[in-house]
């Protein structure tokens, strides 16, 4: 141990620490400065913990406190506060560089050091300075813009007030700063792990190291005697069903007699500190008897395969889709291509690891049980609350959503909450379950792998005639949203195009791989990869330009999608025309850069992403306040997309009030309407519509009575609160034999073009630029829209080129190949705003569409550059080299 004197945010501190204590832990745990975040298991990979020490940007997770005698430490809290923010914090807010906000404090501190040394850095210098800071949301574009804007502020060229949008500019179509942005920029937004509870137990969880085994015995007797240990929790200690049922009752909170994937939880140890819990975990003896592992859908579909779940067949979803007569159309078509496409299991990779805390709120009035409060990262708090109540056997429960560091589908299902809640109930004590990154990767859901066998045909004129896609989805060990993913792939199977004859089949199969669930796009990014690559293959066979081939085959109003549903609007050709000059320029430039070993290519991808699932409903409540402001009560989670902006700006515009008089209540099951998940790109369309419906009722009551406040409205005999609904009219499942039937109420359309270079010797791909043309209807907040698109393009490129989750091998951000700012590339966005008749103020959503066309655009560009097809994602340099070698 050593006594160290250091200055933190201007205040001298004296601390006594051991040699192991790092600055991050001192700041977060002892000084309660939680702006610096932990993501990468203290490996220095993410930069979320960056602070300034003696004028240098350091990763506080790698900085021993014993080395900091007399050091001057500045954290994001020392830079500015929401009441008095620093210019860099203002720049990040005003540039739209803050989405989930988890990386933001680290980014801002690294920026401060850069701008202190160089107030006018180039893009290259910014990339160098921020190279150790990861962001999953933004694609880094707006972060670079924020650094440049901060430089202008600091140089006195312009002031934040000059940049900040004015109320006179209106409420819609204007980039008013997100309501939560300043708190995130100043480190005052609380994420789950930022909450400390005095006397809380900390958990460590024993997880399966094998993909499939029978649990023969568990001996925790030695662990229970370890220092600080309160006890252990096993399946036998859970009073409820012990099953976290999302759609199918198959996933245990803690496994009882069998483990089904690497990472399946078996037992939790609770102790006074996490270190004590982890030490005790080492003493638990579990005897696992390995069972044959179902390593792929094919293996799980054989006659001799073990059935993974006793009451559920391994093929847990099987849905054909038949429109017209593809079998008859294929032989008579002028050109047919046939190919097999595979996509990988992937991690959604939110920067924030899993985290849950649970505590007891005393029933102060007596007469009932105490209330168990769960704070976590749910994006569907009401549904998740019901899941937890059933699984844990405790009714009196409430869920509060903390700020959460990225989503991308991973938070659709309950994960760490189940174990934390079970331990809190078992010990009747508060609990913190804050697993690290490696454990978070093990426990969380993943993007499903698809294996697709495809045929695509056209006539001599280049009109599509038939499409066949027989696809297998690797469901992994548990169902979660399972069949919804295959279902969505079928609902959007024909993409942007009119295809008169379809023969498809989607099968979802249980395996012993990591369990699949929602992942940005959830099905369509995988299926669209096959269709859009097949479009280029067929265009080549027909001798047509892939741009003209796509445009020729655009669906038109009055024609039908693969579901047989007629579309009323299809503003896709207009997007293609907007892209045309960019495409012509790119093709010309690529042709001039193909003779050397580094070859340039251009690739296109398109997408038509459904918004408003058949049968979807939503609800939102609004209330007029005593001062004439409006409170919104809707469980519309915002893990970074900008849903708080949407709710605020729609309300302000509709009611004719200022933004600061809109008060959002979105995070607590105790005061929100059950609006449904922040998933499926549905929040703007579904919750936004429910909100407008509620506001219409309120406004009518106010107009009819002349009331301007809650007091006046109630005095006039009208309620001050109104509940609005949105219900999609097309309801019901697809026909089980033909896959024809209800479809989405609307679509968001996009065209993406990738320009890249391939080093034909190393196989390395460098993305030069990506251009996206999008039509999501009238835009509510342009920065939020472009922010989604930029982040989506970056994520789509990772999916196409680098990322793959392999259980037990991918353990951190380096092995995952997380995109860094140095991987970032130029992006251009073209926006069209065709109003959708049923959208709130004509709008739809865009959060998932942004990566639906990306992977095929990348692969088509690689083909364009090199002449080789990579049909098995990710297209790593090794695969490209091998394909080039095979092609001679």
């Amino acid at each position, binding site marked *: 141990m050593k006594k160290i004197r250091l200055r933190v945010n201007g205040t001298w501190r004296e601390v006594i620490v051991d040699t192991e204590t790092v600055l991050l832990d001192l700041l977060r745990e002892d000084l309660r400065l939680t702006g610096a975040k932990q993501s990468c298991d203290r490996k220095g990979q993410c930069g979320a913990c960056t602070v300034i020490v003696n004028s240098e940007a350091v990763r506080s997770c790698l900085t021993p406190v014993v080395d900091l005698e007399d050091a001057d430490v500045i954290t994001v809290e020392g830079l500015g506060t929401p009441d008095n923010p620093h210019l860099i914090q203002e720049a990040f807010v005003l540039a739209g560089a803050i989405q989930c906000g988890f990386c933001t404090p680290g980014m801002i501190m690294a920026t401060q050091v850069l701008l202190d040394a160089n107030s006018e850095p180039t893009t290259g210098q910014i990339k160098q300075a921020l190279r150790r800071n990861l962001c999953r949301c933004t694609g880094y574009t707006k972060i670079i813009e924020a650094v440049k804007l901060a430089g202008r502020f600091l140089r006195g060229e312009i002031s934040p007030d000059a940049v900040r949008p004015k109320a006179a500019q209106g409420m819609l179509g204007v980039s008013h700063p997100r309501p939560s942005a300043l708190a995130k920029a100043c480190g005052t937004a609380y994420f789950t792990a930022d909450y400390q509870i005095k006397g809380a137990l900390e958990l460590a969880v024993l997880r399966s190291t094998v993909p499939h085994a029978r649990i023969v015995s568990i001996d925790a007797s030695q662990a229970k005697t370890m220092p600080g240990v309160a006890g252990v929790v096993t399946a036998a200690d859970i009073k409820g069903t012990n099953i976290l049922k999302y*759609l199918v009752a198959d996933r245990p909170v803690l496994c009882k007699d069998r483990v089904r994937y690497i990472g399946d939880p078996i037992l939790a140890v609770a102790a006074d500190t996490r270190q004590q819990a982890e030490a005790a975990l080492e003493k638990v003896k579990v005897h696992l008897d390995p069972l044959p592992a179902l390593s792929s859908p094919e293996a799980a579909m054989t006659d001799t395969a073990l059935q993974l779940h006793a009451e559920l067949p391994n093929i847990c979803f099987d849905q054909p889709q038949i429109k017209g007569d593809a079998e008859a159309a294929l032989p008579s078509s002028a050109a047919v291509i046939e190919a097999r496409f595979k996509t990988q299991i992937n991690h959604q990779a939110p920067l924030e690891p899993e985290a849950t805390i649970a505590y007891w709120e005393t029933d102060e009035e007596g007469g009932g049980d105490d*209330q168990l409060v769960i704070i976590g990262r749910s994006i569907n708090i009401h549904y998740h609350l019901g899941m937890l109540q059933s699984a844990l056997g405790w009714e009196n429960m409430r869920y509060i959503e903390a700020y959460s560091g990225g989503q991308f589908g991973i938070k659709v299902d309950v994960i760490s909450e189940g174990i934390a809640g079970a331990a809190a109930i078992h010990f009747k004590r508060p609990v913190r379950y804050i697993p690290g990154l490696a454990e978070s990767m093990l426990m969380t859901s993943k993007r499903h792998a698809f294996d697709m066998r495809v045929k695509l045909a056209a006539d001599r004129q280049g009109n599509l005639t038939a499409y066949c896609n027989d696809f297998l989805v690797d469901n992994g060990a548990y169902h979660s949203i399972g069949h919804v993913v295959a279902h969505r792939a079928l609902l959007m199977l024909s993409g942007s195009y009119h295809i008169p004859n379809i023969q498809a089949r989607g099968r979802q199969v249980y395996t012993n791989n990591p369990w699949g669930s929602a992942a940005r796009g959830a099905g369509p990014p995988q299926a669209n990869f096959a269709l859009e690559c097949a479009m280029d293959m067929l265009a080549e066979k027909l001798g047509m330009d892939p741009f003209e081939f796509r445009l020729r085959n655009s669906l038109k109003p009055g024609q039908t999608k693969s579901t047989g549903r007629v579309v009323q609007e299809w503003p896709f050709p207009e997007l293609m025309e907007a892209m045309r000059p960019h495409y012509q320029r790119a093709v010309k430039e690529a042709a001039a850069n193909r003779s050397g070993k580094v070859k340039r290519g251009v690739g296109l991808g398109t997408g038509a992403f459904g918004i408003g699932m058949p049968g979807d409903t939503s609800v939102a*409540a609004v209330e007029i306040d005593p001062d004439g402001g409006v409170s919104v009560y809707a469980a519309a989670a915002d893990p970074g997309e900008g849903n708080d902006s949407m709710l605020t700006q729609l309300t302000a515009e509709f009611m004719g009030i200022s933004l600061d008089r809109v008060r959002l209540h979105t995070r607590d099951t105790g005061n929100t309407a059950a609006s449904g998940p922040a998933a499926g790109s549905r929040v703007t369309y579904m919750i936004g519509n429910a909100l407008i419906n509620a506001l219409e009722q309120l406004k009518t009551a106010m107009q009819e009575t002349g009331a301007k406040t809650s007091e006046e409205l109630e005095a006039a005999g009208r309620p001050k609160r109104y509940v609005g609904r949105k219900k999609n009219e097309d309801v019901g499942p697809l026909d089980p034999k033909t896959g024809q039937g209800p479809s989405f109420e609307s679509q968001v359309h996009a065209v993406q073009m990738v320009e890249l270079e391939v080093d034909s010797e190393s196989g390395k791909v460098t993305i030069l630029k990506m251009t996206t043309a999008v039509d999501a209807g009238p835009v509510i907040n342009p920065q939020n829209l472009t922010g989604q698109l930029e982040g989506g393009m970056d994520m789509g490129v990772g999916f196409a080129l680098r990322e793959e989750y392999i259980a037990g091998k991918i353990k951190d951000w380096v092995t995952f190949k997380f995109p860094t700012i140095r991987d970032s590339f130029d992006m251009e966005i073209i926006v069209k705003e065709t109003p959708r008749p049923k959208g709130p103020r004509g709008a739809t959503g865009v959060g998932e569409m942004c990566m639906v066309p990306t992977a095929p655009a990348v692969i088509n560009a690689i083909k364009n550059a090199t002449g080789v097809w990579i049909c098995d994602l990710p297209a790593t340099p090794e695969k490209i080299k091998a394909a080039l070698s095979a092609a001679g």
Partner: protein
Amino acid sequence: MQRTIGGREFAFDEEGFFNEFDDWTEEAFEILAHEGGLSLSTEQHRQVVRFLRDFYAYNGRAPLNNQLRKGTGMSLLELEALFPGGLKNGARRLAGLPNPKTCS
């Protein structure tokens, strides 16, 4: 799934909850309650159902347990005894409160 009750079509989810809050009728409640083992509904049952429906109409969600206790003046044990199936699968289901929406 669709089901005809008292000559009228109703849509339920897979757990037997009304898809639509506004579809619910007192007649449907009586029939479903009888099917669920409630031989005779009493004013107490109807009081709980009224509270649940009023609460949902006002808030867009089901009440938490402490709100249910305060709103009905009954203990949780009394409430659970009133409704075979318990609070969620008994009272809330029969009162026509839809399950929270999810991706399905």
